[in-house]
């Protein structure tokens, strides 16, 4: 009897979770483990020689100054992207849950950037930053836009942040809208009767009750911007002079252009650890703010 139930449960589990578990294992878990193993070998495509070399690759990572520079560049990029995209998303979500006209259309509109692939989006912003804005800048004498943003390290940094935030905001907005509409109306009404202003309601009730949404959104934006590659490739190509290479871009260059697979893979593991530590810490800390209504 008991055995039968177990088998039934197993079957049910496999039916629903099997496909995704299979995909997860094949495209994520196994490559990850194999990749981890590769960091201890000197394997590359040319020699196909997988002999064990211990921690040599990790020592090389420690010595690779450019990697740490670009990792720090990435962390700054993620910091600003997460803040800007989330603030933007919350603002849009609040506006679009306040009952203005054409809400649905606007929601769809803001979400659209997400449906555009990173590469296309990158080229779009590239022509905006390197053609349209300099043209307008020269015509009207705006000093800020007279040269392309993509040829200056600092400005190219902000170009990356702006383009990513613009894309992410629409996606996060959907989650925030769901979070905000889930806030019980009676509490808000009670607060109003007690004389709370709009800002107080937002800060003390809506945002507090939407903490689960915030946790999800911060986590998503964090991990997605840490792993940005396509946008980086099409928007700045790492330029000017390789100064805007995000960590993933740098790793790909290291492995495929410089043929240093072991080092590149070891850098990918370092990046993984950094992302995991930051993402888990923030979601642990933010979760503490969660309250029940």
């Amino acid at each position, binding site marked *: 009897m008991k055995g039968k139930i177990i088998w039934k449960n197993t079957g049910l589990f496999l039916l629903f979770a099997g496909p995704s578990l299979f995909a997860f294992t094949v495209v994520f878990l196994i490559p990850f483990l194999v990749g981890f193993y590769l960091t201890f070998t000197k394997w590359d495509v040319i020699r*196909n020689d997988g002999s064990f070399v211990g921690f040599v690759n990790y020592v090389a990572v420690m010595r690779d100054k450019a990697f740490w520079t670009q990792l720090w560049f990435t962390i700054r990029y993620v910091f600003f992207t997460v803040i800007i995209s989330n603030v933007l998303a919350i603002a849009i979500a609040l506006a679009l849950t306040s009952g203005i006209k054409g809400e649905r259309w606007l929601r769809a509109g803001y979400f659209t950037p997400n449906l555009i692939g990173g590469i296309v989006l990158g080229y779009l912003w590239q022509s905006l930053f390197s*053609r349209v804005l300099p043209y307008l800048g020269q015509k009207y004498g705006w000093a800020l836009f007279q040269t392309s943003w993509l*040829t200056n390290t600092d400005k190219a940094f902000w170009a990356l942040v702006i383009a990513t935030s613009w894309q992410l905001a629409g996606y996060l907005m959907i989650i925030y809208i769901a979070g905000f509409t889930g806030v019980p109306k009676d509490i808000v009404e009670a607060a109003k009767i007690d004389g709370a202003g709009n800002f107080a309601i937002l800060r003390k009730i809506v945002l507090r009750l939407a903490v689960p949404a915030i946790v999800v959104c911060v986590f998503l934006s964090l991990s997605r911007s840490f792993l940005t590659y396509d946008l980086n490739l099409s928007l700045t190509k790492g330029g000017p002079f390789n100064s805007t290479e995000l960590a993933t871009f740098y790793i790909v260059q290291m492995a*495929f252009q410089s*043929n240093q697979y072991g080092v590149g893979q070891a850098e990918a593991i370092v990046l993984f650890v950094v992302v995991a530590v930051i993402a888990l810490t923030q979601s642990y800390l933010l979760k503490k703010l969660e309250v029940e209504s």
Partner: protein
Amino acid sequence: MKPRKRFAVLAVCLVLLLGLLAGCSGKSGGNTDSNAGGTSGGGTGTPTSTPSASGKQIKITFFNTSAEVNEVFEKLFAKYHEVNPNVTVELIPTPIGGAQIEIFQSRLASGNPPTISNLDPSHIYVYRDKFLDLEPVKAKYEELTLPGAVEGGILDGKFLGIPWTAQGYGLLYNKRALEEALGGPFDPSTIRTRDALKELLDKVQAAMGVPPVMIHGADWSLGAHYLGALGFSLQSRDMNENLKYWEDVKAGRAKLADNPVFNGLLDTFDILKEYNYRKNDPLVANYELDGQDFAKGNAAFYFMGDWLWAVIGSMEGRDSEFGVLPVPISNNPDDYGNGQVAFSHPKLFAVDNSAATPEEQQAALEFLEWMLTSEEGQKAITEEMGLTMPYKNVKATSSNAIAKAIGEYVEKGETINIGVINYFPTDYWAKTGASMQKYLAGAINRDQLFQEVQAYWESVE
């Protein structure tokens, strides 16, 4: 009790799944091994892979890094299939300027390499153990091609790649714009020294009212074509001497900063920089726009090569006549490089020898010969792709005006052999190009530039 049971179920599932996967991966692992065995077995082409379809149908794959002409190749493949119904050629396309070599590497690593690869010589050199030695057809191609072309396909002493296109580059000029600025005809042979070039640029700038030289601020143009290829190739007319100098630089025995060629090259670069049309924002590097401004005569000069034709050939309202000047690196008109333009065979067709069967290799060689010698093939390459074929009796004429101008130097033998770059590591243009970009933008001075570039070369194994 209950949670533990659920956990057990989960564990069972995981074990089942992992077992299944282990089975899969075990199988593919075996395949890779057998391929690896074939590779180490040497260049005899032992048939290690499974005998392909019992019929006569042969499918070969064609990996293409000349991405801008993907469609022309596909049309050619279809035509060949009509002539030879037994052979199907399938294109493995790559994106323009995107992840090209990554695709090749993943193919190779998964034991599924393309039968024919259209690659840069330097990539063929890196993967030289994977390609078929074309010794048996070498004599045939020596017959078919212009002198020097087969040498371009010899890497590490072996004929590994069949040359099919030739390219040259230098300081291109727009004839109409230049002659209008000068108010009379222009004779390119008068520019053989740096001072003569400076004088010319000065005159043209005064007449046109804008700096007349277009410098494309991309790492490949600055790092590979300007600094790397010219710098190392102009050391001597003998390529082996150039290789030796390069070895010395890598070992730290020779310093770029003390080298007259590199210093001369950068002295000239300083002048070009001074007259740079994109002075205000030198790193925009928009290939279409730069080509357009040159083709329409807004900028009279452009440091670029005949491949530019792919962009400007079909442009509306462009000028029709273009010429090319050498980049003078000194004030002695007889110095090597002051009267020559760089010329090379930038892409080669190589045939796989790591997984392809002898039948596939044979079919690949036959197909390549058809493409390079038949009228359809030659027409497609010269007319549709706008490329120059280093072959005798080409049955079609190219419309490429820049290639024609470079051809005049080729006929006189006034070319620079940049073969030394075939031995450079594949990331050199990105790394040294970044330093050149800094120099172009004024972020570093010449000492720092030499320091960075020297440090890069010394870090290369």
